[in-house]
């Protein structure tokens, strides 16, 4: 086979595989939209479920997911940002730093169901929060930390070293340099990581199974020590645990959940590209 022919053949095969990867993604999204769009109306989004959840809306699940997402943000963001600053700006190449990095790599790899177990053991039982929003937020918050730390650290590292050197050479202190020269420029990347982490938290089921999620509660939560419904768990319940559930409600719920997480994902990439375009270094 001539070199030119093997080149053409290889490109054709690689392209074929790429089609196999990307077309299903479009198909999945399209299929969900087509099947679920019919269920979406004002009542579906704003009403309580009725008649054993077979009628009415999914409002408490949507609200629950939004509350949990905010709770996750409150738990995860400050600590993650500070940890990223530590790793990027303060950590020296020593045993402690290597241990921290190893710990973060491991946190990122721990299965989400194991986070659920941890949340159950630590927050629900040992801390005595019971099945509650605070226990769920803590669990989800800890679970998102490695993603946020990694992206934030990367963003901080991508700020050119010379800005730090210049700032220090002008007599600024280390924290002043971080505060005025590093963080502003790393902000797009940090935000991107945070939103992506939240998008992941919003769609997770396993960590909330035993820590916060309620099968059905007829009222909205009134304190952080209440249980709440949440979209991912609700979708699981209505598709596998409730016989005779109308398909449109199932598709509608799946679509709403998808729209929430995808909005966050797209928001994250949007932040990244616009702010990247705006910077002039």
């Amino acid at each position: 086979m001539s070199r030119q022919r093997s080149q053409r053949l290889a490109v054709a095969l690689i392209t074929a595989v790429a089609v196999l990867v990307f077309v299903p993604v479009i198909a999945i999204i399209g299929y969900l939209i087509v099947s679920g769009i019919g269920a979406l109306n004002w009542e579906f989004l704003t009403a309580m479920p009725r008649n054993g959840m077979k009628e009415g809306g999914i409002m408490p699940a949507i609200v629950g997911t939004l509350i949990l997402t905010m709770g996750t943000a409150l738990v995860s963001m400050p600590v993650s940002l500070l940890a990223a600053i530590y790793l990027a700006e303060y950590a020296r190449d020593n045993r402690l730093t290597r241990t921290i990095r190893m710990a973060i790599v491991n946190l990122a790899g721990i299965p989400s169901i194991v986070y659920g177990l941890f949340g159950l053991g630590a927050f629900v039982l040992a801390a005595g929060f019971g099945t509650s929003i605070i226990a769920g937020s803590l669990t989800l918050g800890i679970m998102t930390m490695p993603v946020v730390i990694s992206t934030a650290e990367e963003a901080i590292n991508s700020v050119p070293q010379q800005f730090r050197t210049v700032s220090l050479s002008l007599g600024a202190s280390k924290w002043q340099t971080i505060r005025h020269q590093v963080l502003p420029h790393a902000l797009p990347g940090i935000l991107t990581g945070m939103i992506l982490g939240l998008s992941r938290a919003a769609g997770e089921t396993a960590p909330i199974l035993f820590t916060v999620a309620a099968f059905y509660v007829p009222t909205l939560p009134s304190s952080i020590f209440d249980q709440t419904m949440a979209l991912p768990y609700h979708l699981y319940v209505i598709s596998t645990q409730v016989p005779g559930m109308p398909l449109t409600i199932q598709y509608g719920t799946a679509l709403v959940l998808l729209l929430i997480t995808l909005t966050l994902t797209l928001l994250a990439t949007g932040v990244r590209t616009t702010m990247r375009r705006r910077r002039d270094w």
Partner: protein
Amino acid sequence: MQPKISIQGVYYTYGDGTEALRNVSFDVLPHEVFVLFGPARSGKTTLLRLLNRLSDLTDDATLRGVITFNGASISGRSVDVFDLRRRISMVFAVPTPLPGSIRFNLTYGLQMAGMRDRRVLAERVEQSLQQAALWDEVKDRLDSSAMALSGGQKQRLCLARSLALEPEVILLDNPTSGLDPLSTNMVEEMLHDLSQRYTIIMVPHSVQQAARVADRAAFMLDGELIEVAKGERLFLHPQDQRTEDYITGRFG
């Protein structure tokens, strides 16, 4: 006359054992243009960064010997390193404005030092730009991005940024390396005037540049100081064979 900066028996060793500087000693006098020259990797830039302790950024390196500034050691625990860096300011090889406006660049160091007085800040902006011969070119666009300036303007802005701190010593690390001949000339001509007010230590772009600007010069090779002398004497009558080889060699 008390030397402005005195370097006595300085050794500087990296964590992996490489010796960047070996037994370097010399004095820099007030209000002179002192030039450190030599081939690449001879330790010039390393030495420069020791003087305002930007070398602190390098992990695991060890300094031995004494460096004094106005007679006092700069290495002790009691030294305010941020104040030191304002008094011994540095301009880098690559023009590196901070992202932000021209004004922001010029006032940054002062603001970090706690200077809030707008009138003083404005005064310093104009003064330093005048001294760096940049005022006429940028006075109407102080609030536009510093990144939009040309290479030569950027470097003069960096110089002005140092001057705004009213330092005592200015370290110039090959400041003309990225500049066109015209901008290079401007910077070189500025040096003599600046030395009336400041002490200048410079790593030059070439031997020719060293010869043009130096009051006194030091030749460095492989981390060692080979020879220090008045500029004219060093470049016309080098005492050491290695200095002569370098100055007259094929590689300028």
